[in-house]
């Protein structure tokens, strides 16, 4: 299964590639990157019917992570992707909104990469 990371910070890509370099080399994890909600939707459209895990930031300029989540849960149902939300604010409202919109998991920044790795492995 592919993992699509959505974040407006370009260096997140570099960081993920470094952090998971062993898993990537062993072909345990397969990452794709999008730098905005809009770009993420384009990517998803181009790979229809493929199982995906999405890891998305909430605070992004333009389409927010929550808006992206809503669209994904509504429009991409076969197969339904797993969506994990990441945000700097672990506040109740964001958490509840994300849950209500059907988010499968919720992580707060700074990301604990060990925990994230466990979660990813578990889901795959």
């Amino acid at each position, binding site marked *: 299964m592919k993992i699509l990371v959505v974040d407006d910070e370009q260096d997140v890509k570099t*960081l993920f590639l470094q*952090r998971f370099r062993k898993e990537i080399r062993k072909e345990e994890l397969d990452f794709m990157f999008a730098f905005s909600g809009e770009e993420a939707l384009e990517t998803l459209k181009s790979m229809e019917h493929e199982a995906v895990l999405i890891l998305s930031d909430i605070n992004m300029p333009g389409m927010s992570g929550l808006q992206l989540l809503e669209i994904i849960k509504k429009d991409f149902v076969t197969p339904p992707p797993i969506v994990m939300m990441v945000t*700097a*604010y672990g*506040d*109740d*409202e964001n958490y509840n909104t994300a849950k209500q919109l059907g988010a499968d998991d919720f992580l707060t*920044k*700074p*990301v604990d990469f060990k925990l994230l790795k466990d979660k990813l492995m578990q889901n795959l």
Partner: protein
Amino acid sequence: MIFKIKHIRHLFQNKQNSFWVCLLSLFFAFQSFSQNNSTDVEALIESVSQQLQNSVTDSTQVYKNMFKSVRLSKQVKDKKLLAKSYQNLAIWHQNNVTLDSTLYYLEKAQTTLKATDFNKLKAKNHLIKEDAHKDKREYSKALEADFKALKIYENINDQKGIAECYTRLCDLLYYQEKYTNGAEYCQQAIEIQKQLNVPKNLALSYRYKADNLLMLQEYEQALENISSAITVLENAGISKVSIAKNYNTRGNIYKHMNRFDDAIAEYQKCYQIATEHNAYNGVYVALANIGHVYRLQNNYDKALPYTLEAIEMMKKSGNIQNLRENYMHASDSYEALDQYKEALEYERLHSKMISDDSQEMIAQLESELQAKYESDKKDETIEAQDATISRQRQIQLLYIGIAVLLGFFLFAMYFTMKNIRKKREALTKLNTELAENQKTIELSNRKLKASLEELKATQAQLIQSEKMASLGELTAGIAHEIQNPLNFVNNFSEVSVEMIDEMKVELDKGDIEEVRAVSNDLKQNIEKILHHGKRADDIVKGMLQHSRINTGTKEPTDLNKLTDEYFRLAYHGLRAKDKSFNALLETDYDESIKTVNIVPQDIGRVILNLFTNAFYAVDDKKSITTSTYYKPKVSVSTEKLEDKIIIAIKDNGNGIPEEIIDKIFQPFFTTKPTGKGTGLGLSMSYDIIKAHNGELKVETENLKYTQFKIILPIKNTKDV
């Protein structure tokens, strides 16, 4: 449809009172044979009544005869005859639709009858009056007249009269659309009339009841009643022409029941009888109705000739009540038959009648307005007169005042002369006192100067504290902004440590290729660490710049970038303080704006202040609103015009109340709870924008939004 039934009904109703006149006249004609002069007069009155009933013949001759009967009745000094003569005149005018004259003659008849006990004539007078008011559509006055007649009949226990009043009530209520009440009155009339031998009256009650039931859509019952009316009339052997209108009503009921063939059969009967008896109003009503039924069946070919003939007859008869709708029907039929020229012609006639009606109404309104205007003018004249009177009074008072003053002055002068000497002595004493006073003043002056200095210091302190307050707002935002680069620094450092361990392993293995690859990655990581470190550094520098003492020097500044930075800082600042706070942010920057010559710290402070206020407003609304639909939103836009730049900051909070809108730029004015705001934010912002030769404007709508606009002039092209 309702309109049509009413109007047709209206055509038929005038005849009833003539019936009365006839009966009474006959009665009196017989009785007064013995009296010489009176007999002739009575005969004359009787013939007039007859002619009035028939409604045709030589109208001018009838009119002459009526005046003759008035004259003769006066000669024989017979009040009863005189009253009847006046009533005949009233009825004539009623038939000629000159209703004001009708009311005039009724008044005369009433005066004549005043001291008499001719109760039936009195009652009849009220009933003619009722008809006149009904024709003028003054239904409440008509009702009043009817009740007066009813009271007289009740006093003399005249059952027939009582029943007739009920029937008429039923009719009046029909025109006032109180159909249920109307039907009830008719039922009461029917019950009385069944006991008496009055087939025409009984049939009329049945027919009126049927009309009311038709409007109540009780078609079966209406049918039953109209059929009863017809049966009663037939059994009594009453002439067919009196039955004709009942056929018409039955036709109307069938039409509503969509029994179109039955309806046409009824209308045909009505048409036949009316034609035989030259009763034109019956003829064109029947024709118009047949045309209408064919139209309802979309049988335009057949409908058209009927409608056209009805129109011609209505025009001839001068009764144009139903003309308008028949023009419309004709136009519709022509259109359905693709004869557009004719359709247009009739449409024009239709429109013209509508416009004539409107103009009549306008003329009436204008005359009312004129009357009102004149009465207003009269009031004005009275006011002007009042004003003149009060002015004259004032002038009188002034003269008196002047006289009193003069007296006072003379008196005062005498005393002044006397005092001057005393004063000179006092003056020297005063001079010494003044010197002493001056010393005291100098002292207090020094004190004032000192407290002014103190105030200035306090003001500076206050400004500084406002700066610190906004710094406080910034700090949280800045903390968040720094968090992101710090995360990168930490993450890349951690991963680099891991990679160095890896590199060592590869070195031991002697895999130089792999070592090179890892070292390349390491270099990249360290560059990232440096990059994000610098990013954090810039943010801290920005913060220091904000709190730095203002140098007041303008420098070219990227206004969009400045605005966006403070937008984010204000938002994140609030988010960091209150995690549950959330708002939709909208930005719309005019990319044609490059750099603007401003004092960046100052403008930044204004922008930050406006954003903080906006977020406070939406948060406040969110916390008090009960609506779950409210979505806090703050938007910012920049726009470059020819000679100025506008920064607009808008929130969808509850707006600024009208009573405080004038105060918001005053120093120390705040709506925030004590300790939450210094009340200097907007006042300082205002001063800063003034110092830039710009404007700070506010627009707000209660419960909807507030928008602040910073308008900065750009003097020349170098600014941008």
